[in-house]
């Protein structure tokens, strides 16, 4: 009887140690490009969906495409590339969006329409030049205290 209690206690102790040692709490999210995001990580975690919806409306209805919270910029920073240098869809398993979304069991509908990888580079095209200016804009934002 005493042995059984000791064994149970031992099991409990071991399992507690195992849980606390292996303790990655929450998903491991791939790191994005650069030092900082367009806003604090905590803020982005809670509010990215509202920011995206808001900027979506700004873009579609009011033609404002310069804002810092564009889907294309998110994809550009957070996309990862495979061994051949080909971009992996940002909503693929284990990638930036899906890691967290799978953990919290929220499906993403963005990428049935939006591009999940950055546009292929066309040298000298106007769009890439704009993209550079977007990047500068983002860095300016990031420098704000």
């Amino acid at each position, binding site marked *: 009887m005493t042995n059984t209690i000791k064994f149970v206690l031992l099991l409990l102790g071991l399992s507690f140690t195992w849980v606390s040692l292996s303790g990655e709490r929450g998903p491991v999210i791939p790191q994005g490009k650069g030092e900082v995001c367009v*806003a604090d990580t905590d803020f982005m975690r809670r509010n990215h969906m509202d920011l995206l919806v808001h900027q979506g409306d700004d873009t579609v209805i009011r*033609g*404002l495409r310069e804002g810092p919270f564009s889907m294309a910029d998110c994809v550009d920073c957070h996309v990862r590339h495979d061994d051949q240098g080909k971009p992996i869809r940002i909503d693929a398993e284990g990638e930036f969006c899906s890691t967290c979304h799978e953990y919290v069991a929220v499906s993403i509908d963005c990428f049935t*329409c939006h*591009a999940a990888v950055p*546009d292929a580079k066309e040298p000298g095209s106007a769009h890439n030049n704009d993209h550079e200016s977007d990047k500068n804009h983002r860095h300016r*934002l990031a420098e704000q205290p």
Partner: protein
Amino acid sequence: MSDLAPDPVSCMDADFEHNTKANAARRRFLQRIGVMGVSALTASSLPMNVSRGGSLLAADIGSSAASDEPVSGVSSERRWGLLIDTSKCSAGCDACVRGCHEEHGIGVSGNDHTDAQWIRKIDLEDNDSGETMSLPVMCQHCETAPCVDVCPTGASFKRADGVVLVNKHTCIGCRYCMLACPYKARSYIHEPVTDQLSRAPRGKGTVESCTLCVHRIDDGQNLQPACAVACRKDAHSAIVFGDLNNPDSEISKSIREHDAKQVRADLQLNTAVRYTGL
């Protein structure tokens, strides 16, 4: 006796006068409250409106870089349109269609029943005279667009600068707009789409049509839609893009000079796409 008895008429007058005075006082009071309320609202909302054109959330997280930028965006001072010279448009040429497909990442599966058609190239022949004509027909960007009227969710809308668009965030794919459009300008996306371009999001279950290349318009630098560029590259230059509100723009001058027509002008939709030589 008659002196003592109250005069019913004057009594009513007195009541009426009293009520009117009370009402007037009440009205003044409410007006004052209203003015105070409006000024309070204005005072509280003004800094946010000034701080950033349309984007209140940017102000919330304290991005002062955004507040320095001038407020931009679409304005009703301009109305974008196209002028198509049918005499320069040749039968069998589909450069504009290909240019459009390339610009918006529209793939062609070969199934004509379901493939998206933002521009339809139409060849006409007069049975009597044998005269032929070829012309591209795309969304005509009507001033009073039937597709906007019928949309149950407000997804089909007209921007301030006259460009008629589908807001795919709110489109439920009911295709009522496709029925309402007299130009057959809209397409429904039947199959899942992959490999979209970041400038042209498009996906299954939504309706789409010519956007006059709004992403280019909004950029402000590359101010010509892809179809016009492709047409010029093919040495036809049949498509002219410009501001219909500006009487000195090339498009407005050409419209006046050549007496450009609308397709189905009888519908009185005041289209932004005009044709010469019809």
